[in-house]
């Protein structure tokens, strides 16, 4: 047990938590925006996966990590817009539409990967680029703190900035107010002349961009290749994080970090010789427990109100 705590209370573990929280946080912020507009994006998992491949492909064929990132974001934007077209315009059930996007991503990424590389597992034969890690000047020299918050991938810092960005968008801008008004009371928003469709499209598109950033981090930061199914449930975990965060930016961020820590824990425990099959379930178990605690609390509160 000693060695267990030795691994948890280290700057390495905190660093690793921040690192693995990044993709979950991106997706959870995306989920937050689309949920605020009342059009949940259930396709985040699949969109992240497609963007992860998009980043690898674009960067490999252009030789530029930056264009790869743009490509990943573009893939996220387009696939979320397609999903939005189906759910908003054709009134496809939100959940079924999301499920369909995820199936599409599962098969489509393998299909394209095989078509481009002749391999169904990973993109290791593609010369894809990675986004740089950044050493923060001055801070990197501070003991412990420097080890923890310096040297992360650039997208991790982007994610941190976007926490504030999303808060600002939702609370301080006209667009944010419109998004919230559409989600909270559709009819009231309509009566004051808000174009509901447009706002929801925008919110879905934004959530796609966020999932795109998360996907880019997976294949161009976390690791330097694409592998099948690499989003590994993070999109679903992000949905759980958003729910547990009770629709607030701070809450969503904190619950993302919680799930990130569970993920980091499973990475660390692997080193202690516990069977990897059992360790692999930790993030999923944490998500189920988290969701249940949230749901139970919610039910209690509702009952108190009644």
């Amino acid at each position, binding site marked *: 047990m000693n060695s267990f705590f030795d691994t948890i209370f280290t700057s390495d573990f905190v660093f690793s938590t921040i690192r693995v929280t990044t993709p979950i946080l991106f997706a959870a912020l995306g989920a937050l925006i689309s949920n605020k507009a009342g059009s949940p994006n*259930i396709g985040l998992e699949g969109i992240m996966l497609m963007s992860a491949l998009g980043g690898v492909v674009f960067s490999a064929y252009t030789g530029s990590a930056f264009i790869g990132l743009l490509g990943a974001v573009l893939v996220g934007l387009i696939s979320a817009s397609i999903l939005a077209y*189906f759910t908003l*315009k*054709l*009134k*496809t*059930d939100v*959940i*079924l*539409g999301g*499920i*369909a*996007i995820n*199936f*599409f991503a*599962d*098969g*489509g990424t*393998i*299909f394209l990967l*095989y*078509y481009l590389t002749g391999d*169904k597992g990973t993109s290791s034969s593609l010369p894809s680029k990675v986004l740089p890690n950044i050493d923060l000047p001055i801070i990197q020299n501070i003991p412990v703190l420097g080890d923890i918050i310096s040297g992360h991938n650039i997208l991790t810092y982007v994610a941190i900035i976007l926490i504030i960005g999303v808060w600002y968008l939702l609370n301080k801008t006209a667009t944010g107010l419109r998004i919230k008004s559409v989600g909270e009371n559709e009819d009231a928003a309509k009566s004051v002349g808000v174009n509901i469709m447009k706002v929801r499209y925008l919110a879905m598109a934004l959530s796609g961009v966020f999932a795109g950033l998360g996907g880019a981090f997976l294949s161009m930061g976390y690791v330097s290749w694409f592998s099948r199914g690499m989003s590994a*449930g993070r999109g*679903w975990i992000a*949905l*759980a994080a958003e*729910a547990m965060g009770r629709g607030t930016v701070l809450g969503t961020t904190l619950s993302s970090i919680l799930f990130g820590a569970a993920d980091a824990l499973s990475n660390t425990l692997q080193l202690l010789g516990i*069977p990897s*099959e*059992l360790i*692999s*379930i930790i993030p*999923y*178990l944490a*998500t*189920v427990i988290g*969701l*249940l605690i*949230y*749901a*139970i609390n*919610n*039910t209690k509160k509702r009952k108190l109100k009644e």
Partner: protein
Amino acid sequence: MNVEKRFEIVRTFVAVTISLLIGFAIILFASDEPLSTLYYFIISPSTKMRYLGNVVELAIPLIFSGLATSILFQTGLFNLGSEGVFYFSGLLASIIGIKFSLSFIFHPILAILIGSLFGMIVMLLIGFFKAKWNASELVISLMFNSIFFGIGAYILNFYFRDPNVSGVYSFKMNESVFLNKIIPGTRIHTGLIIALLTVFLVYLFLYRTRWGYEIRMTGLNKRFGKYTGMNTTKVILIASILAGAIAGMGGAVEIIGMYDRFKWSALPGLGFDGALIAMLAKNKPKNVIFAALFLAYIRIGADLMARMTDIPSEMVYILQAIIILFISGKKFLEGYKEKSLLKEVKNNE
């Protein structure tokens, strides 16, 4: 047949056609020999008895997963847990096959019962979480899939793995557990009869019993159910248990019908396929059979295509997703529906 019903059929047909056309377009674009690729995909499964046998063999687990998912969807539960149940129940069935040796018919029955029991417990849990605390059955069921896969892989690797074969396979099952082959020249097994019987029983349950009626009504309109005094919690739990039993049965039947060892090194995907089948079948038990055969046919076609040409079989998943998107689009082809309604009105005048 009324307009509404006819419209649903037309819509399903159009959705399937669009997805197939997209499939053809992908083949034309990506294949060096598009014509022969198309031939393998569409025609070749029907050219040999063995291939047709493959289609039916594959349809067997798909009927179970389609049936389980229809029951859940019908109750308004977006629970994709059949996938994990399929995997783990299959593993449990193989363990029964390895550890026990019973006289002929009792052995497969025990394996299937244990698989079903597991499915019932898992789905009951997910349903309970939903009914009691409104916890998202979609996310929880997907998490459960990964959890059961992890636990199953651990059990397989540490307790039942046969070290004498390459690959992570279990020990050989005792022959007494296997389901008999029923059609010579194919590997079609008695699981087909179990599947068809299950379809019939589910049909009777849904359309001839009070509980079945309540399940159908809850799915149509939750508030209607409540106002007419139905207990939504009870309905959710019954539907979940039933779906779990069927999914678990499916996993067990698949393993003892088609394999001599447990060989799944990843989630088999059969449970997820239930979602498409339920949608194609409009949650109607007898349609599930045809939807399962359809999906099995294009799957086998895709496998043959992948074996003979340069196009990977994963193409089918793209088509599946497109079908789901269009079929569930309530406004898809609405213009056509309105026109035919108008025509009907005019004819009646």
